[in-house]
Protein backbone atom coordinates (compact mmCIF):
# COMPACT_ATOMS: atom_id res chain seq x y z
CA UNK A 1 0.00 0.00 0.00
CA UNK A 2 1.78 3.20 -1.16
CA UNK A 3 1.75 6.13 1.24
CA UNK A 4 2.22 8.76 -1.46
CA UNK A 5 0.65 8.88 -4.88
CA UNK A 6 1.63 11.62 -7.27
CA UNK A 7 -0.68 11.98 -10.25
CA UNK A 8 0.24 14.08 -13.30
CA UNK A 9 1.73 16.73 -11.07
CA UNK A 10 2.80 19.98 -12.74
CA UNK A 11 3.84 23.41 -11.59
CA UNK A 12 4.77 26.35 -13.76
CA UNK A 13 6.00 29.84 -12.91
CA UNK A 14 5.05 32.16 -15.69
CA UNK A 15 6.60 30.42 -18.67
CA UNK A 16 8.90 28.10 -16.70
CA UNK A 17 7.60 24.57 -16.25
CA UNK A 18 9.46 23.78 -13.04
CA UNK A 19 7.71 20.45 -12.53
CA UNK A 20 5.88 18.80 -15.37
CA UNK A 21 3.61 15.82 -15.41
CA UNK A 22 5.15 13.71 -12.68
CA UNK A 23 3.69 10.34 -11.76
CA UNK A 24 5.02 8.17 -8.96
CA UNK A 25 4.08 6.07 -5.99
CA UNK A 26 6.15 5.75 -2.83
CA UNK A 27 5.93 2.96 -0.28
CA UNK A 28 6.29 3.48 3.43
CA UNK A 29 9.34 2.70 5.53
CA UNK A 30 11.95 3.43 2.88
CA UNK A 31 14.53 6.06 2.15
CA UNK A 32 13.88 7.54 -1.26
CA UNK A 33 16.38 9.67 -3.14
CA UNK A 34 15.51 12.49 -5.51
CA UNK A 35 18.38 13.58 -7.72
CA UNK A 36 18.86 15.70 -10.79
CA UNK A 37 20.93 18.60 -12.12
CA UNK A 38 20.55 22.15 -10.82
CA UNK A 39 17.20 23.67 -11.61
CA UNK A 40 15.64 20.28 -12.36
CA UNK A 41 12.63 21.04 -10.16
CA UNK A 42 13.48 18.99 -7.08
CA UNK A 43 12.89 21.72 -4.51
CA UNK A 44 9.74 22.77 -6.33
CA UNK A 45 8.59 19.16 -6.04
CA UNK A 46 9.15 19.32 -2.25
CA UNK A 47 7.27 22.60 -2.08
CA UNK A 48 4.36 20.90 -3.81
CA UNK A 49 4.55 18.02 -1.35
CA UNK A 50 4.34 20.46 1.58
CA UNK A 51 1.68 22.87 0.39
CA UNK A 52 4.03 25.81 -0.06
CA UNK A 53 3.03 25.83 -3.72
CA UNK A 54 -0.24 24.47 -5.01
CA UNK A 55 -0.05 22.42 -8.21
CA UNK A 56 -0.84 24.04 -11.56
CA UNK A 57 -2.41 20.71 -12.40
CA UNK A 58 -2.45 17.17 -11.05
CA UNK A 59 -2.37 16.22 -7.40
CA UNK A 60 -0.52 14.58 -4.55
CA UNK A 61 -2.36 12.12 -2.31
CA UNK A 62 -1.00 11.03 1.05
CA UNK A 63 -2.11 7.92 2.79
CA UNK A 64 -0.40 8.33 6.13
CA UNK A 65 -3.23 8.17 8.69
CA UNK A 66 -6.02 8.88 6.33
CA UNK A 67 -6.23 9.92 2.72
CA UNK A 68 -5.39 13.58 2.12
CA UNK A 69 -5.18 15.26 -1.25
CA UNK A 70 -3.04 18.25 -2.13
CA UNK A 71 -6.30 20.15 -2.59
CA UNK A 72 -6.47 20.51 1.18
CA UNK A 73 -2.77 21.16 1.77
CA UNK A 74 -1.83 24.27 3.70
CA UNK A 75 1.76 24.77 4.83
CA UNK A 76 0.84 24.94 8.51
CA UNK A 77 -1.33 21.83 8.34
CA UNK A 78 1.40 19.54 7.02
CA UNK A 79 2.96 18.59 10.35
CA UNK A 80 -0.51 17.72 11.53
CA UNK A 81 -0.82 15.36 8.57
CA UNK A 82 2.50 13.78 9.52
CA UNK A 83 4.78 15.54 7.06
CA UNK A 84 7.81 17.58 8.15
CA UNK A 85 10.68 19.00 6.14
CA UNK A 86 13.97 20.83 6.09
CA UNK A 87 15.02 23.56 3.68
CA UNK A 88 17.82 23.67 1.15
CA UNK A 89 18.71 27.20 2.25
CA UNK A 90 18.63 26.54 5.98
CA UNK A 91 15.70 28.30 7.59
CA UNK A 92 16.38 28.17 11.28
CA UNK A 93 15.08 30.81 13.64
CA UNK A 94 18.43 32.49 13.83
CA UNK A 95 17.97 34.52 16.97
CA UNK A 96 16.39 31.72 18.94
CA UNK A 97 18.39 29.16 20.90
CA UNK A 98 18.91 25.66 19.53
CA UNK A 99 16.58 24.43 22.25
CA UNK A 100 13.81 26.84 21.27
CA UNK A 101 14.24 26.01 17.61
CA UNK A 102 13.65 22.34 18.25
CA UNK A 103 10.88 23.07 20.76
CA UNK A 104 9.12 24.99 18.01
CA UNK A 105 9.06 21.81 15.98
CA UNK A 106 7.06 20.33 18.81
CA UNK A 107 4.38 22.99 18.31
CA UNK A 108 1.56 20.76 17.12
CA UNK A 109 2.03 18.30 19.93
CA UNK A 110 1.38 20.88 22.62
CA UNK A 111 -2.00 20.63 24.32
CA UNK A 112 -2.75 23.68 26.40
CA UNK A 113 -4.74 26.81 25.81
CA UNK A 114 -4.27 30.54 25.94
CA UNK A 115 -5.27 30.85 29.59
CA UNK A 116 -2.73 28.21 30.58
CA UNK A 117 0.01 30.04 28.76
CA UNK A 118 -0.91 33.40 30.32
CA UNK A 119 -1.44 32.12 33.85
CA UNK A 120 0.83 29.08 33.86
CA UNK A 121 -1.90 26.64 34.86
CA UNK A 122 -0.83 23.04 35.57
CA UNK A 123 -1.26 21.97 31.94
CA UNK A 124 1.43 24.48 31.00
CA UNK A 125 3.98 22.79 33.23
CA UNK A 126 2.87 19.32 32.18
CA UNK A 127 3.18 19.98 28.46
CA UNK A 128 6.29 22.10 28.57
CA UNK A 129 8.28 19.70 30.70
CA UNK A 130 7.29 16.77 28.54
CA UNK A 131 8.29 18.67 25.41
CA UNK A 132 11.51 19.73 27.07
CA UNK A 133 12.47 16.15 27.90
CA UNK A 134 11.74 14.88 24.43
CA UNK A 135 13.63 17.70 22.82
CA UNK A 136 16.64 17.02 25.01
CA UNK A 137 16.59 13.43 23.79
CA UNK A 138 16.56 14.62 20.19
CA UNK A 139 19.42 16.99 20.84
CA UNK A 140 21.37 14.15 22.36
CA UNK A 141 20.84 12.02 19.26
CA UNK A 142 22.28 14.82 17.15
CA UNK A 143 25.09 15.47 19.60
CA UNK A 144 23.93 19.01 20.20
CA UNK A 145 23.05 18.81 23.87
CA UNK A 146 25.91 20.95 25.14
CA UNK A 147 25.04 23.67 22.63
CA UNK A 148 21.35 23.84 23.41
CA UNK A 149 21.44 27.41 24.70
CA UNK A 150 23.46 28.87 21.86
CA UNK A 151 21.82 30.91 19.16
CA UNK A 152 21.11 28.99 15.98
CA UNK A 153 23.06 31.50 13.91
CA UNK A 154 26.22 30.88 15.93
CA UNK A 155 26.56 27.25 14.82
CA UNK A 156 28.64 26.09 11.88
CA UNK A 157 26.78 25.16 8.73
CA UNK A 158 26.83 21.40 9.20
CA UNK A 159 25.39 21.61 12.68
CA UNK A 160 22.70 24.01 11.56
CA UNK A 161 21.54 21.34 9.12
CA UNK A 162 21.37 18.89 11.99
CA UNK A 163 19.30 21.28 14.06
CA UNK A 164 16.88 21.58 11.17
CA UNK A 165 16.50 17.81 11.02
CA UNK A 166 16.00 17.66 14.79
CA UNK A 167 13.39 20.41 14.55
CA UNK A 168 11.52 18.49 11.87
CA UNK A 169 11.69 15.29 13.93
CA UNK A 170 10.23 17.08 16.93
CA UNK A 171 7.02 17.39 14.95
CA UNK A 172 6.81 13.59 15.12
CA UNK A 173 6.30 13.11 11.42
CA UNK A 174 5.70 9.90 9.52
CA UNK A 175 7.20 11.34 6.39
CA UNK A 176 10.38 13.38 6.55
CA UNK A 177 11.53 15.47 3.59
CA UNK A 178 15.18 16.51 3.56
CA UNK A 179 16.34 19.05 0.97
CA UNK A 180 20.07 18.55 0.49
CA UNK A 181 20.86 17.57 4.08
CA UNK A 182 24.56 17.10 3.40
CA UNK A 183 25.16 20.32 1.47
CA UNK A 184 28.08 22.19 2.97
CA UNK A 185 29.32 19.21 4.97
CA UNK A 186 32.77 17.67 4.66
CA UNK A 187 33.11 13.96 3.73
CA UNK A 188 33.42 12.91 7.35
CA UNK A 189 30.33 14.78 8.42
CA UNK A 190 28.47 13.39 5.42
CA UNK A 191 29.38 9.85 6.40
CA UNK A 192 28.21 10.45 9.93
CA UNK A 193 24.97 11.99 8.69
CA UNK A 194 24.32 9.08 6.35
CA UNK A 195 24.50 6.65 9.24
CA UNK A 196 22.32 8.93 11.35
CA UNK A 197 19.59 9.21 8.73
CA UNK A 198 19.54 5.46 8.36
CA UNK A 199 19.28 5.08 12.12
CA UNK A 200 16.49 7.60 12.65
CA UNK A 201 14.45 5.99 9.89
CA UNK A 202 14.26 2.79 11.94
CA UNK A 203 14.13 4.43 15.35
CA UNK A 204 11.24 6.75 14.46
CA UNK A 205 9.63 4.43 11.88
CA UNK A 206 9.82 7.03 9.16
CA UNK A 207 9.62 7.28 5.45
CA UNK A 208 12.31 9.66 4.27
CA UNK A 209 12.61 11.40 0.94
CA UNK A 210 15.84 13.24 0.42
CA UNK A 211 17.18 15.48 -2.31
CA UNK A 212 20.92 15.17 -2.60
CA UNK A 213 23.77 15.96 -4.92
CA UNK A 214 26.22 13.80 -2.97
CA UNK A 215 26.02 10.48 -4.77
CA UNK A 216 27.82 8.52 -2.09
CA UNK A 217 25.05 9.40 0.33
CA UNK A 218 22.29 8.55 -2.13
CA UNK A 219 23.86 5.27 -3.21
CA UNK A 220 24.59 4.36 0.39
CA UNK A 221 21.12 4.58 1.91
CA UNK A 222 18.39 5.00 -0.68
CA UNK A 223 16.40 1.97 -1.65
CA UNK A 224 14.89 3.80 -4.59
CA UNK A 225 15.92 6.85 -6.58
CA UNK A 226 13.92 9.25 -8.76
CA UNK A 227 15.79 11.31 -11.31
CA UNK A 228 14.50 14.73 -12.37
CA UNK A 229 15.62 16.72 -15.37
CA UNK A 230 14.01 19.90 -16.69
CA UNK A 231 10.99 19.28 -14.49
CA UNK A 232 10.27 15.78 -15.74
CA UNK A 233 10.91 12.41 -14.19
CA UNK A 234 13.44 10.77 -16.50
CA UNK A 235 14.21 7.60 -14.57
CA UNK A 236 13.49 5.69 -11.38
CA UNK A 237 14.71 2.48 -9.81
CA UNK A 238 17.35 1.17 -7.47
CA UNK A 239 20.51 3.22 -7.21
CA UNK A 240 22.33 0.74 -9.42
CA UNK A 241 19.70 0.73 -12.13
CA UNK A 242 19.60 4.49 -12.19
CA UNK A 243 23.35 4.84 -12.27
CA UNK A 244 23.55 2.81 -15.44
CA UNK A 245 20.56 4.43 -17.13
CA UNK A 246 21.63 6.08 -20.36
CA UNK A 247 19.24 9.00 -20.11
CA UNK A 248 20.49 9.79 -16.63
CA UNK A 249 24.08 9.78 -17.71
CA UNK A 250 23.22 12.06 -20.59
CA UNK A 251 21.30 14.45 -18.35
CA UNK A 252 24.22 14.78 -16.01
CA UNK A 253 26.88 15.05 -18.67
CA UNK A 254 24.80 17.43 -20.76
CA UNK A 255 23.75 19.45 -17.77
CA UNK A 256 27.12 20.11 -16.24
Amino acid at each position, binding site marked *: MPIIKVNNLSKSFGGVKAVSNINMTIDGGEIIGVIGP*NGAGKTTFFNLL*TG*IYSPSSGEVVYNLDKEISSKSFK*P*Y*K*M*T*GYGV*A*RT*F*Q*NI*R*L*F*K*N*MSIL*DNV*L*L*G*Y*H*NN*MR*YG*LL*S*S*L*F*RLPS*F*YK*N*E*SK*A*YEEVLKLLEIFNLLDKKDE*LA*SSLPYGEQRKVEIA*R*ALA*AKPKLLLLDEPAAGMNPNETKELTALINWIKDEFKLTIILIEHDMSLVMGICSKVFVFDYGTLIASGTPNEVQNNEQVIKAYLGGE
Partner: protein
Amino acid sequence: MKLFNKKNTLSMLAVLGVYAIAGLLINTGFIDSYIFLNIVLIGINIILAVSLNLITGFTGQFSLGHAAFMSIGAYAAGILTAKLDQPFWVGIAGAALFAAFAGIVIGIPTLRLKGDYLAIATLGFAEIVKIIGLNTEYIGGATGLNDIPRYTTWTWLYFCVAATVLLISNFIKSYKGRACIAIGEDEIAAEAMGVNTTYYKVLAFTLGAFFAGIAGALYANYFYFLKPDSFGFMKSIDILVIVVFGGMGSIKGSIIGAILLSVISLFLQGIPELRMVVYSLILFLIMVYRPQGIMGKSSLKFFRKRGVLYANHQGK
Protein backbone atom coordinates in the same frame (compact mmCIF):
# COMPACT_ATOMS: atom_id res chain seq x y z
CA MET B 1 9.91 24.38 36.09
CA LYS B 2 8.15 24.90 39.37
CA LEU B 3 5.91 27.69 40.49
CA PHE B 4 7.48 28.33 43.88
CA ASN B 5 11.16 28.01 43.22
CA LYS B 6 13.60 30.35 44.85
CA LYS B 7 13.79 32.79 41.96
CA ASN B 8 10.04 33.17 41.62
CA THR B 9 9.55 33.67 45.33
CA LEU B 10 12.26 36.31 45.45
CA SER B 11 10.85 38.27 42.53
CA MET B 12 7.38 38.02 44.02
CA LEU B 13 8.73 39.54 47.25
CA ALA B 14 10.51 42.27 45.28
CA VAL B 15 7.31 43.14 43.43
CA LEU B 16 5.31 43.42 46.65
CA GLY B 17 8.15 45.28 48.37
CA VAL B 18 8.32 47.99 45.73
CA TYR B 19 4.57 48.33 45.90
CA ALA B 20 4.52 48.73 49.68
CA ILE B 21 7.43 51.14 49.91
CA ALA B 22 6.24 53.41 47.10
CA GLY B 23 2.70 53.25 48.48
CA LEU B 24 4.01 54.41 51.84
CA LEU B 25 5.97 57.27 50.26
CA ILE B 26 2.88 58.39 48.39
CA ASN B 27 0.62 58.22 51.42
CA THR B 28 3.03 60.16 53.58
CA GLY B 29 3.41 62.79 50.92
CA PHE B 30 7.07 62.14 50.20
CA ILE B 31 6.07 61.57 46.62
CA ASP B 32 4.05 64.64 45.76
CA SER B 33 1.29 64.83 43.20
CA TYR B 34 3.63 66.12 40.49
CA ILE B 35 5.99 63.20 40.87
CA PHE B 36 3.02 60.86 41.09
CA LEU B 37 1.67 62.22 37.82
CA ASN B 38 4.92 61.27 36.19
CA ILE B 39 4.84 57.86 37.81
CA VAL B 40 1.40 57.34 36.30
CA LEU B 41 2.73 58.33 32.88
CA ILE B 42 5.65 55.95 33.23
CA GLY B 43 3.35 53.11 34.26
CA ILE B 44 1.05 53.71 31.31
CA ASN B 45 4.01 53.88 28.96
CA ILE B 46 5.37 50.60 30.31
CA ILE B 47 2.08 48.86 29.55
CA LEU B 48 1.94 50.40 26.09
CA ALA B 49 5.52 49.55 25.25
CA VAL B 50 5.40 45.98 26.53
CA SER B 51 2.17 45.33 24.65
CA LEU B 52 3.48 46.86 21.42
CA ASN B 53 6.65 44.84 21.87
CA LEU B 54 4.54 41.70 21.70
CA ILE B 55 3.17 42.77 18.32
CA THR B 56 6.20 44.42 16.77
CA GLY B 57 9.23 43.24 18.71
CA PHE B 58 8.37 39.59 19.14
CA THR B 59 5.90 38.77 16.38
CA GLY B 60 7.54 41.12 13.90
CA GLN B 61 4.33 42.86 12.83
CA PHE B 62 5.24 46.46 12.23
CA SER B 63 2.47 48.57 13.77
CA LEU B 64 2.20 52.35 13.66
CA GLY B 65 -1.25 52.46 15.22
CA HIS B 66 -0.87 51.36 18.80
CA ALA B 67 -2.25 54.63 20.16
CA ALA B 68 -5.59 53.78 18.54
CA PHE B 69 -6.00 50.73 20.78
CA MET B 70 -5.16 52.90 23.76
CA SER B 71 -7.73 55.49 22.72
CA ILE B 72 -10.45 52.88 22.26
CA GLY B 73 -9.71 51.63 25.76
CA ALA B 74 -9.61 55.14 27.16
CA TYR B 75 -12.95 56.10 25.67
CA ALA B 76 -14.54 52.79 26.67
CA ALA B 77 -13.42 53.32 30.25
CA GLY B 78 -14.44 56.97 30.13
CA ILE B 79 -17.94 56.12 28.93
CA LEU B 80 -18.36 53.26 31.38
CA THR B 81 -17.22 55.18 34.44
CA ALA B 82 -18.40 58.71 33.62
CA LYS B 83 -21.60 58.17 31.67
CA LEU B 84 -22.74 54.81 32.94
CA ASP B 85 -21.47 55.16 36.52
CA GLN B 86 -19.76 51.80 36.53
CA PRO B 87 -16.98 50.95 38.99
CA PHE B 88 -13.38 51.13 37.83
CA TRP B 89 -12.87 47.42 37.37
CA VAL B 90 -15.76 47.35 34.92
CA GLY B 91 -14.16 50.30 33.15
CA ILE B 92 -10.83 48.51 32.88
CA ALA B 93 -12.39 45.24 31.75
CA GLY B 94 -14.53 47.04 29.19
CA ALA B 95 -11.54 49.01 27.94
CA ALA B 96 -9.47 45.86 27.52
CA LEU B 97 -12.24 43.96 25.75
CA PHE B 98 -13.19 46.76 23.38
CA ALA B 99 -9.56 47.34 22.46
CA ALA B 100 -8.99 43.60 22.01
CA PHE B 101 -11.96 43.48 19.69
CA ALA B 102 -10.45 46.33 17.69
CA GLY B 103 -7.24 44.29 17.63
CA ILE B 104 -9.10 41.43 15.98
CA VAL B 105 -10.79 43.79 13.55
CA ILE B 106 -7.50 45.34 12.46
CA GLY B 107 -5.60 42.06 12.73
CA ILE B 108 -7.68 40.00 10.33
CA PRO B 109 -7.82 42.22 7.25
CA THR B 110 -4.22 43.35 7.52
CA LEU B 111 -2.86 39.81 7.63
CA ARG B 112 -2.11 39.84 3.98
CA LEU B 113 0.17 42.81 4.47
CA LYS B 114 3.78 42.76 5.46
CA GLY B 115 6.42 45.17 6.60
CA ASP B 116 5.99 48.76 5.53
CA TYR B 117 2.59 48.08 4.02
CA LEU B 118 1.30 46.73 7.30
CA ALA B 119 2.76 49.74 9.07
CA ILE B 120 0.90 52.10 6.79
CA ALA B 121 -2.37 50.19 7.06
CA THR B 122 -2.18 50.34 10.86
CA LEU B 123 -1.37 54.04 10.66
CA GLY B 124 -4.42 54.51 8.46
CA PHE B 125 -6.57 52.54 10.84
CA ALA B 126 -5.44 54.71 13.75
CA GLU B 127 -6.19 57.88 11.83
CA ILE B 128 -9.67 56.59 11.01
CA VAL B 129 -10.31 55.83 14.67
CA LYS B 130 -9.18 59.34 15.56
CA ILE B 131 -11.38 60.99 12.95
CA ILE B 132 -14.42 58.98 14.00
CA GLY B 133 -13.71 60.11 17.56
CA LEU B 134 -13.47 63.73 16.47
CA ASN B 135 -16.89 63.53 14.83
CA THR B 136 -18.86 61.58 17.40
CA GLU B 137 -21.10 63.84 19.48
CA TYR B 138 -21.75 61.27 22.19
CA ILE B 139 -18.13 61.31 23.33
CA GLY B 140 -17.74 65.06 22.96
CA GLY B 141 -16.20 65.15 19.49
CA ALA B 142 -13.21 67.44 19.13
CA THR B 143 -13.86 69.20 22.43
CA GLY B 144 -13.38 65.95 24.27
CA LEU B 145 -14.94 63.81 26.95
CA ASN B 146 -15.02 65.48 30.38
CA ASP B 147 -15.62 64.70 34.02
CA ILE B 148 -14.26 61.19 34.10
CA PRO B 149 -13.91 60.13 37.73
CA ARG B 150 -10.35 59.85 38.99
CA TYR B 151 -10.08 56.20 39.95
CA THR B 152 -6.50 55.49 38.97
CA THR B 153 -4.63 55.05 42.23
CA TRP B 154 -1.17 53.76 42.95
CA THR B 155 -2.61 50.32 43.66
CA TRP B 156 -4.53 50.09 40.38
CA LEU B 157 -1.61 51.43 38.42
CA TYR B 158 0.96 49.18 40.00
CA PHE B 159 -1.00 45.98 39.69
CA CYS B 160 -2.07 46.68 36.12
CA VAL B 161 1.55 47.25 35.15
CA ALA B 162 2.70 44.16 37.05
CA ALA B 163 -0.07 42.02 35.54
CA THR B 164 0.76 43.19 32.02
CA VAL B 165 4.45 42.47 32.41
CA LEU B 166 3.84 39.11 34.06
CA LEU B 167 1.20 37.87 31.64
CA ILE B 168 3.04 38.94 28.52
CA SER B 169 6.29 37.43 29.82
CA ASN B 170 4.44 34.20 30.56
CA PHE B 171 2.90 34.21 27.14
CA ILE B 172 6.25 34.75 25.44
CA LYS B 173 7.72 31.78 27.26
CA SER B 174 4.90 29.47 26.30
CA TYR B 175 4.70 27.55 23.03
CA LYS B 176 2.28 30.15 21.75
CA GLY B 177 4.81 32.87 22.42
CA ARG B 178 7.53 30.85 20.75
CA ALA B 179 5.26 30.52 17.74
CA CYS B 180 4.93 34.32 17.64
CA ILE B 181 8.69 34.80 17.86
CA ALA B 182 9.18 32.21 15.14
CA ILE B 183 6.82 34.15 12.88
CA GLY B 184 8.90 37.26 13.46
CA GLU B 185 12.03 35.33 12.56
CA ASP B 186 10.95 33.34 9.53
CA GLU B 187 7.33 33.05 8.61
CA ILE B 188 7.77 30.31 6.05
CA ALA B 189 9.75 28.09 8.39
CA ALA B 190 7.27 28.69 11.19
CA GLU B 191 4.42 27.63 8.93
CA ALA B 192 6.26 24.55 7.79
CA MET B 193 6.64 23.55 11.44
CA GLY B 194 2.90 23.72 11.98
CA VAL B 195 2.39 27.29 13.17
CA ASN B 196 -0.90 28.73 11.93
CA THR B 197 0.56 32.13 11.21
CA THR B 198 -2.83 33.76 10.60
CA TYR B 199 -4.07 32.76 14.02
CA TYR B 200 -0.94 33.84 15.83
CA LYS B 201 -0.67 37.20 14.14
CA VAL B 202 -4.26 38.01 15.05
CA LEU B 203 -3.61 36.70 18.54
CA ALA B 204 -0.60 38.99 18.95
CA PHE B 205 -2.63 41.99 17.77
CA THR B 206 -5.51 41.06 20.03
CA LEU B 207 -3.40 40.57 23.15
CA GLY B 208 -1.35 43.68 22.46
CA ALA B 209 -4.52 45.70 21.97
CA PHE B 210 -6.06 44.21 25.11
CA PHE B 211 -3.27 45.57 27.28
CA ALA B 212 -3.11 48.88 25.42
CA GLY B 213 -6.80 49.19 26.27
CA ILE B 214 -5.94 48.81 29.95
CA ALA B 215 -3.36 51.56 29.59
CA GLY B 216 -6.09 53.70 28.06
CA ALA B 217 -8.40 53.08 31.02
CA LEU B 218 -5.69 54.09 33.49
CA TYR B 219 -5.09 57.21 31.44
CA ALA B 220 -8.76 58.18 31.19
CA ASN B 221 -9.42 57.71 34.87
CA TYR B 222 -6.38 59.68 35.90
CA PHE B 223 -6.63 62.74 33.68
CA TYR B 224 -10.47 63.14 33.84
CA PHE B 225 -10.43 64.36 30.30
CA LEU B 226 -10.00 62.74 26.87
CA LYS B 227 -9.41 64.23 23.44
CA PRO B 228 -9.07 62.22 20.22
CA ASP B 229 -6.02 64.30 19.28
CA SER B 230 -4.05 62.91 22.20
CA PHE B 231 -3.98 59.52 20.47
CA GLY B 232 -2.70 60.51 17.08
CA PHE B 233 0.19 59.40 14.96
CA MET B 234 2.79 60.99 17.27
CA LYS B 235 1.56 58.99 20.25
CA SER B 236 1.94 55.76 18.29
CA ILE B 237 5.43 56.85 17.31
CA ASP B 238 6.30 57.66 20.92
CA ILE B 239 5.37 54.12 21.93
CA LEU B 240 7.34 52.63 19.06
CA VAL B 241 10.35 54.72 20.03
CA ILE B 242 10.22 53.30 23.56
CA VAL B 243 10.14 49.77 22.18
CA VAL B 244 13.04 50.34 19.81
CA PHE B 245 15.04 52.31 22.35
CA GLY B 246 14.53 49.58 24.94
CA GLY B 247 15.32 46.84 22.47
CA MET B 248 12.99 44.93 20.18
CA GLY B 249 11.89 41.70 21.75
CA SER B 250 13.08 42.59 25.23
CA ILE B 251 10.48 43.14 27.93
CA LYS B 252 13.06 44.42 30.37
CA GLY B 253 14.18 46.83 27.67
CA SER B 254 10.66 48.17 27.21
CA ILE B 255 10.37 48.83 30.93
CA ILE B 256 13.72 50.57 31.14
CA GLY B 257 13.03 52.44 27.90
CA ALA B 258 9.69 53.70 29.19
CA ILE B 259 11.29 54.97 32.37
CA LEU B 260 14.28 56.61 30.68
CA LEU B 261 12.30 58.29 27.92
CA SER B 262 9.71 59.57 30.37
CA VAL B 263 12.48 61.03 32.50
CA ILE B 264 14.11 62.61 29.46
CA SER B 265 10.86 64.22 28.38
CA LEU B 266 10.34 65.45 31.95
CA PHE B 267 13.65 67.29 31.78
CA LEU B 268 12.83 68.64 28.36
CA GLN B 269 9.77 70.36 29.76
CA GLY B 270 12.21 72.86 31.27
CA ILE B 271 12.93 74.21 27.78
CA PRO B 272 9.48 74.42 26.19
CA GLU B 273 10.46 76.16 22.92
CA LEU B 274 13.29 73.80 22.13
CA ARG B 275 11.80 70.68 23.69
CA MET B 276 10.89 68.95 20.44
CA VAL B 277 14.07 70.00 18.69
CA VAL B 278 16.22 68.49 21.42
CA TYR B 279 13.98 65.42 21.54
CA SER B 280 14.44 64.89 17.81
CA LEU B 281 18.21 65.17 18.19
CA ILE B 282 18.20 62.63 21.02
CA LEU B 283 16.14 60.25 18.89
CA PHE B 284 18.55 60.69 16.03
CA LEU B 285 21.61 60.04 18.18
CA ILE B 286 20.07 56.90 19.66
CA MET B 287 19.28 55.54 16.21
CA VAL B 288 22.77 56.22 14.95
CA TYR B 289 24.73 55.01 17.94
CA ARG B 290 22.50 52.34 19.43
CA PRO B 291 19.96 51.25 16.81
CA GLN B 292 19.47 47.88 18.49
CA GLY B 293 18.34 49.59 21.69
CA ILE B 294 19.52 49.28 25.26
CA MET B 295 18.78 45.61 25.73
CA GLY B 296 18.86 44.50 22.12
CA LYS B 297 21.38 41.92 21.00
CA SER B 298 20.32 41.15 17.53
CA SER B 299 17.45 42.12 15.39
CA LEU B 300 14.61 40.21 13.90
CA LYS B 301 14.46 39.40 10.27
CA PHE B 302 12.21 42.16 9.06
CA PHE B 303 14.22 44.72 10.90
CA ARG B 304 17.52 43.60 9.54
CA LYS B 305 19.29 45.34 6.77
CA ARG B 306 17.00 46.97 4.32
CA GLY B 307 16.68 45.21 1.03
CA VAL B 308 17.47 41.77 2.39
CA LEU B 309 13.81 40.93 2.79
CA TYR B 310 13.10 40.34 -0.83
CA ALA B 311 16.52 39.14 -1.77
CA ASN B 312 16.78 35.80 -3.41
CA HIS B 313 18.02 33.50 -0.71
CA GLN B 314 18.57 30.53 -2.94
CA GLY B 315 22.03 29.22 -2.32
CA LYS B 316 23.19 26.97 -5.09
